[in-house]
């Protein structure tokens, strides 16, 4: 997509196409000859894996939508009919429901990889920001999707999340009513959520196109975080990265298949196999695992509006990372101080997730989890808004290798001890 094209139409037909709609040229330049740093590691295969996940979700989702009935009285039974009566319906649904978890697993790895290697830093700020938009769209899509089976967790999850909007001063209640299309979560809500759940994945696909475009202009970052300086630093995307991505994708699908076929309800909540009942509140309303860290933040703040703001702020913060990081060095491999705070941040995210999965009054070893969640939330913001700018200024980075090729081809003393 950037730089001079190396496409050379061979046949008359290819020339004819190329002069009218140079789609083969685009494919050739972006997926075949695209110069890619030769040192990308396993963590760089998750972009391809995520594209695969999106494709799988759309394909299985389209089939499921053929059999699903978006009606509060029929939705639950229609999902069960898919599981029992539709040929391979159980397979479609289990791929789709586990696919959501696998999608988020991959996106979290992808995001932490970007954080670790400084892939958000110039000239890739827009690439990162577009990625945060995709993540937001994914969360919305997953939330809408979780409501559709119309089980107890679907209903109560939808109730809790939409009620957050009622925390907005003055117009909160009106906004919640407007979102529901009713005075409570009900049939109207289910219908609009289904509509949006079908719409958003295609918007995600479009934004993914922008994401790939924004990637292909500056090119890939890499584990060293240094710029590509010469053709020796890169290899053509095909066959080097097509085969590497394919191998790791296959391992990912292997893990995916273990869940689909042998633990299909591992990520699910048994309560969601009980039909939605507005009169019976489940003892613990728990969102899907991938939203738990934010749920923990929300619950750790006693004031509802403040809780909503903190939770929203945690996501909005991600947009500012390119400018919060003041370091001239991208990769944490050469940032001894930042590396430690990065891993502390990763642990804090897991702690937040754990706190979100437990009941509000739970305690571990005498420590009330609500306080663990408060501390973790504090660190989350501290990390991005205070530590990131300061560490960039005070840290002495390790010596960077002069080039990717030199580092990979192993001139002594060039490669970092990692």
């Amino acid at each position, binding site marked *: 997509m950037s730089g001079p094209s190396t496409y050379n139409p061979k046949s008359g037909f290819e020339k004819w196409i190329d002069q009218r709609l140079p789609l083969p040229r685009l494919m050739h330049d972006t997926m075949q000859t695209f110069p890619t740093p030769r040192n990308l590691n396993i963590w760089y295969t998750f972009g391809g894996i995520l594209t695969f996940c999106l494709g799988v979700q759309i394909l299985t989702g389209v089939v499921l939508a053929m059999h699903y009935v978006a009606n509060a009285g029929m939705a639950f039974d229609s999902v069960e009919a898919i599981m029992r009566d539709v040929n391979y319906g159980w397979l479609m649904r289990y791929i789709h429901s586990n696919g959501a978890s696998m999608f988020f697993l991959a996106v979290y790895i992808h995001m932490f990889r970007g954080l670790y290697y400084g892939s958000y830093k110039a000239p890739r700020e827009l690439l990162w920001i577009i990625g945060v938009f995709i993540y937001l769209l994914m969360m919305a899509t997953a939330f809408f999707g979780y409501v559709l089976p119309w089980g107890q967790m679907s209903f109560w999850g939808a109730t809790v999340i939409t009620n957050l909007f009622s925390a907005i001063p003055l117009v909160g209640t009106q906004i919640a009513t407007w979102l529901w299309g009713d005075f409570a979560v009900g049939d109207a809500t289910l219908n609009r959520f289904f509509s949006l759940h079908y719409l958003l994945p295609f918007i995600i696909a479009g934004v993914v196109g922008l994401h790939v475009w924004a990637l292909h202009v500056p090119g890939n970052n890499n584990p060293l975080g240094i710029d590509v300086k010469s053709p020796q630093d890169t290899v053509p995307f095909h066959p080097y990265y097509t085969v590497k991505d394919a191998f790791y994708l296959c391992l990912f*699908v292997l893990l995916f298949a273990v869940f689909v*076929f042998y633990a299909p309800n591992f990520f699910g909540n048994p309560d969601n196999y009980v039909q939605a009942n507005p009169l019976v509140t489940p003892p613990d309303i728990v969102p899907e695992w991938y939203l738990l860290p934010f749920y923990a933040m929300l619950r750790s703040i006693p004031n509802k509006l403040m809780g909503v703001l903190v939770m929203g702020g945690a996501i909005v913060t991600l947009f500012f990372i390119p400018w919060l990081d003041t370091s001239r060095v991208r990769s944490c491999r050469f940032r001894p101080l930042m590396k430690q705070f990065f891993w502390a941040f990763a642990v804090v995210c897991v702690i937040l997730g754990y706190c979100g999965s437990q009941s509000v009054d739970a305690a571990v070893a005498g420590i009330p989890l609500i306080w663990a969640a408060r501390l973790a939330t504090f660190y989350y913001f501290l990390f991005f808004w205070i530590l990131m700018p300061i560490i960039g200024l005070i840290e002495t980075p390790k010596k960077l290798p002069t080039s990717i090729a030199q580092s990979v081809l192993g001139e002594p003393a060039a490669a970092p001890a990692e």
Partner: protein
Amino acid sequence: MRSTALPLGLALGLLVSAPELTPAWALDTARLPVKSGDFSFNGPFGTYDRAALQRGFQVYKEVCAACHGLDHIAFHNLDEAGGPGFTEPQAKAIAAGYKLPADPNDKGEINDDKGNRLTRPGILADKFPPPFPNEEAARANNSGMLPPDLSMIEKAREGGADYVYSIAYGFNMAPPKGFKVTDGKYYNPYFEGWNIAMPPPLVDNAVTYSDGTKATVAQEAHDVATFLAWASDTKMEERKRMGFAVLIFLVVLSGLLFAAYRKVWADLH
């Protein structure tokens, strides 16, 4: 400072340690961990025990069905692969044993001269009819409580088959000292809160098994938990079988891709 800090600390200490002086009324009535049924369908290659499924169906039909529905199961499921293994004539005979509300007759009537609802025998395409015509009737017959539908019960409860087995089996224990069973309820420590509205459903010889198996409470509980595992997950055997083929395929493909990956990259280093 010091003079106020000490009493404050003492007060705090008392507050913190207070829950440890467990009074009788604060008995922890969280449900016991489930008792493992050690089922044939556990594990990646486990399948349903056909004889247990058929016995479990008998327990459901003759005991549980008085109050509990099986909404999502159709009679034709009974003779499908991966199920209890009834033959089609057997499944038809089972279906025909149920009376379902008939369609209007050629005079447009749905009730006979005496005002009784017209019925017809069930066919394979029918689902199991519910034990009560509506929720209100179910509650009226069960002191206000609603017996849950059983066709998804093992997916809808933490612990699955082991949970159902534990509940069905767990009535034979005396409540611990200090625990008073609520009037009209029954003691079952595997149920959250220990007070369950369901009367003990199983007794020895509640059913007579045609295959000669001794119908103890444990046997009946185990059989019905097996049957309900299938009811919750009718495609389990197909799923595990396909999963095995898929995993073999993916392992082989991974191996090939790894070889290709190594070969393609070999000339770079």
